[in-house]
């Protein structure tokens, strides 16, 4: 490849190609924004209270005096407060009694990102779940309904209803319930406290109006997701009279400060839902494209091979199929959700003129923006392009499991040359 000393030159000089049509579209948006800003007279922002305070010595002194009085007042207040009589068990019991749970998640800027409805059966087992996601990845509004292992997912703007049964997905759903169903969440932190992974502090106000504040501080890397995590903090707001959790604020520690990430709110408990809420069939429009993953015949069976072996095999099979011009087999090995997409995929892969496989024998871990459930596969090929034979070795092919088919794998990310 290139000599090492050229690295600085390489970074300085590397260029990017752009799509000229999109260039124009973006420039049009920029010019529209510019046009509007010229019309809009800039508003004069009134000075903030803080600016007024710091501008004058007198107001600065007055503000300092107010802060001192407030601090002294608070100290006196805390000294007089009584020993907490509240116990976590009261909240667990109060929240457990509800068969129906409804909660919403708001981001730190106040936008509603998720709304969830849970229904338990008489034995306390989870029966039905519905979650509405707002603008997932900047794209669709998505509704997910899970009923005893079976999942329906409706992408509203794409007009797509996807059906699948997937054990790993079910595990995640149950995990989600355990994290944010208030009864399970409180049980969970109590258990983690015993294991030394969480520190719990309870503040019970002396008046009967303010909520009980339960603060849980997690050790780093004990919270939620796989992979390294910073220290997290959750603040539970618990109603004094009912002992029900009304909200959970979530924070992460960054640069010695807790940064608020969002808040789960629990507006009602045990309010029976209309059964229709868990039946998407009645809710989706008639022109929705139904994709049943259970019936999809895609990917390659793993058999007795290890994950690394099957990842290499699937990539080898894909390029062998391209060399043999067997585009139907090659398409079956590429990720797609809808059989209707196959002609388009075949049209694209027909343009890849693979002449020879030099090597496909190594896997590598995925880059940070990909799930850890995928595996990259290195390969070196010879392809014909613009009348020339060139060596092609990009590291951008990734393999993962097929949703609902745990013993099958598929190429889920692939950039065309």
């Amino acid at each position, binding site marked *: 490849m290139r000599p090492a000393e050229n690295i600085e030159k390489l970074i300085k000089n590397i260029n990017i190609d*752009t*799509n000229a049509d999109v260039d124009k579209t973006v420039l049009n948006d920029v010019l529209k924004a510019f046009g509007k800003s010229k019309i809009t007279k800039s508003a004069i922002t009134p000075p903030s209270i803080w600016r007024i305070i710091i501008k004058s010595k007198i107001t600065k002194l007055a503000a300092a005096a107010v802060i001192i009085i407030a601090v002294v007042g608070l100290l006196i207040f805390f000294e007089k407060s009584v020993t907490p009589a509240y116990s976590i068990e009261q909240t667990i019991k109060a929240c457990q009694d509800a068969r129906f749970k409804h909660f919403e998640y708001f981001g730190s800027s106040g936008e509603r990102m998720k709304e969830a409805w849970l229904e338990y059966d008489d034995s306390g087992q989870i029966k039905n779940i519905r979650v509405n996601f707002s603008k997932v990845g900047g794209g669709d509004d*998505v509704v997910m309904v899970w009923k005893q292992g079976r999942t329906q997912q409706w992408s509203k703007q794409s007009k797509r209803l996807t059906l699948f049964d997937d054990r790993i997905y079910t595990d995640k759903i149950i995990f989600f319930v355990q994290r944010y169903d208030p009864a399970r969440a409180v049980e969970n932190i109590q258990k983690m406290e015993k294991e030394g992974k969480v520190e719990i502090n309870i503040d019970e106000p002396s008046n009967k109006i303010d909520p009980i504040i339960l603060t849980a501080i997690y050790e780093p890397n004990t919270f939620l997701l796989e992979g390294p995590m910073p220290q997290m903090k959750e603040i539970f707001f618990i109603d004094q009279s009912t002992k029900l959790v009304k909200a959970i604020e979530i924070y992460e520690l960054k640069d010695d400060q807790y940064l608020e990430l969002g808040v789960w709110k629990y507006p009602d408990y045990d309010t029976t839902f209309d059964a229709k809420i868990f039946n998407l069939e009645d809710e989706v429009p008639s022109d929705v494209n139904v994709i049943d993953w259970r019936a999809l015949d895609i990917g390659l069976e793993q058999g007795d091979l290890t994950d690394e072996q099957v990842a290499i095999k699937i990539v080898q099979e894909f390029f062998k199929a391209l060399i043999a011009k067997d585009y139907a087999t090659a398409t079956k090995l590429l990720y797609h959700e809808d059989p209707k997409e196959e002609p388009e995929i075949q049209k694209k892969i027909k343009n890849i003129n693979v002449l020879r496989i030099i090597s496909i024998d190594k896997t590598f871990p995925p880059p940070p923006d990909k799930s850890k459930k995928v595996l990259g596969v290195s390969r070196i090929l010879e392809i014909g392009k613009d009348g020339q034979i060139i060596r092609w070795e990009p590291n951008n092919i990734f393999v993962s499991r097929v949703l609902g088919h745990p013993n099958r794998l598929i190429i889920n990310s692939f950039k065309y040359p």
Partner: protein
Amino acid sequence: MIEDKLLIWKFKQGSTDALCRIYEKYKDKLLRLAMSLLNDTAAAEDIVQDCFVSFAQSSQRLKVGGNLKSYLAISVANRVRNWNRSRKRQEIAGLSEAEPIISSYKRPEQWIIYNEELCRLNNALFQLSYEQREVVILHLHSGMKFRAIAELQGVSINTVQSRYRYGLDKLRSILNSEAKL
């Protein structure tokens, strides 16, 4: 540099031509910067578009202290940080791991056209820590001074210089080992 000062002055006077020139002059560089920091084409495109739109809206109150290139590069770097933070928020908010097929949302048309060199270099860059990557790219590609990067990262200039040194050493070793394959 002088051209940029003139462009900014004209842009502040309301010149559409000046804005078009700034866009043409810097769009590729900013896309490249965002791609190197994120390795996510769709997000990089959104961030650069967003950066230009808010730049266009800011003509009346715009104050470019240093040079325009660094100003725009910092704007992209800050947006990338916000984007990373908000993505993390979504993940931490739960159920992100339970959204395996939602991520297949496809954009109708891509702005950035992939080339192999970009792919290879990005793969190498993504083996550095975010802070090292940011220093290397902002210094080498966007021509920013270490002092300005130190301000952006909220660390000392010495820290930035060591991040740069370690980052380059690591890149050299990654690309050299690739060369031996």
